[in-house]
């Protein structure tokens, strides 16, 4: 058999279950325990760029809203820089670009406030259109699902985006485009996620 490769195997995933809030958003589970919960302030007080709100619902194959989802968002700042030591560039003081939201227990609606990210340099220097990376866990989801939210009003950048263009079925690309509307003068992007069936959202193996 030859020499042994001494790599470890990744710990296998298990569902987050229906009570994920206890660990990751205890206030929503119904009790106060931590001085501060993490992930509620994505952009911080000094973020440049356009303040936006992102909203949606996660639907199962029957069209019913999934009411025990937790989503995490990861995005660059308005200049296209991630708040991470390996990404070249500076972010505003207090900008983290990471958020954590849960769905409303009655309606399944979720939403977060942030700033619109800028385009990010991708592989081989190709520019990626502005996007927010999403990770979705819930009861019944065995391995967290990764997707990307792109913006309706970035049609030109979206058309050239190397990740969107990986999706062979052009009709499916639309599942990654958030629709823009305005509410009280603030831009709101609507991004509904369909786990299965008609209009199934594109999920990535990253």
């Amino acid at each position, binding site marked *: 058999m030859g020499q042994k490769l001494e790599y470890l*195997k990744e710990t296998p995933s298990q569902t987050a279950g229906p*009570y994920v809030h206890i660990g990751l958003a205890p206030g929503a589970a119904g009790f106060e325990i931590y001085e501060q919960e993490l992930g509620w302030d994505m952009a911080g007080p000094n973020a440049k760029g356009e303040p936006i709100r992102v909203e949606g619902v996660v639907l199962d194959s029957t069209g019913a809203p999934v009411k025990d989802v937790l989503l995490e968002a990861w995005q660059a700042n308005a200049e296209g820089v991630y708040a991470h030591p390996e990404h070249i560039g500076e972010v505003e003081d207090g900008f983290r670009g990471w958020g954590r939201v849960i769905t409303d227990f009655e309606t399944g609606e979720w939403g977060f406030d942030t700033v619109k990210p800028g385009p990010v340099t991708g592989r081989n220097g190709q520019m990626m259109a502005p996007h927010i990376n999403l990770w979705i866990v819930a009861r019944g989801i065995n391995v967290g699902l990764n997707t990307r939210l792109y913006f309706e009003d970035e049609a030109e950048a979206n058309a050239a985006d190397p990740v969107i263009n990986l999706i062979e079925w052009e009709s499916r690309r639309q599942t990654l485009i958030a629709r823009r509307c305005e509410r009280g003068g603030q831009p709101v992007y609507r991004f509904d996620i369909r786990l299965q069936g008609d209009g199934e959202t594109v999920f990535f193996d990253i």
Partner: protein
Amino acid sequence: MTTPPKPGEFYQRDRRWHPPALSQDYKTSVTRSPRLPLISLENTASEITGPVFGHKDIDPADNDLLRNFAKPGESPIGERIIVHGRVLDENARPVPNTLVEIWQANASGRYRHKKDTYLGALDPNFGGCGRTLTDAEGNYCFRTVKPGAYPWRNWVNDWRPAHIHVSVFGTGFAQRLITQLYFEGDPLIARCPIVNTIPDPAAVEMLIARMDMNATIPLDTIAYRFNIVLRGRRSTLFENRLEGN
């Protein structure tokens, strides 16, 4: 000045090692599992980077579930345990300074959650969540009570083995992982439809914490050891750039 080694992409996730999205015996997965194939993406900055946490984000006492919700001078009921281990990557390198969060039922199998209506009693001194950052060698440690088994609606007589939910970040968003820790010797493990979403018994073994008498505190708290492995990263062996290892 020397350039530090430049790690590249994360190794591809072994999807046959993880549970498939659809597992018939875990009924909730049936309507919540994508049917179309995932689109495989070579990592970009969006996947290689991820949130960074520091000691300002959490309190050092957040990892002590015996204390973090208890009234002064009181303790939760149940077997006092330590859960400790290391967070490593697939290259067996420690993952330092990464956020580990846990949540669990109390000793009677009841969760402190407004949606849990199980008959098991709530414990006024037990919240059921904790969090910590790994140290420079990737070590982490929690003190808690051993959770109880509890029934759940799947088939009519399904019981979850005692378990602790574990969430880990790593350094990149592609490493994000949620899993569950089980306890050595529990006969419910083999019967559990959620455990059995994992096809390979060797993968299930990675989720079973072992009793660790050497880390046990005599006359006080019994220890279990649970190592966590996150995806590893390529070294950029053959790239046009010459830096790297």
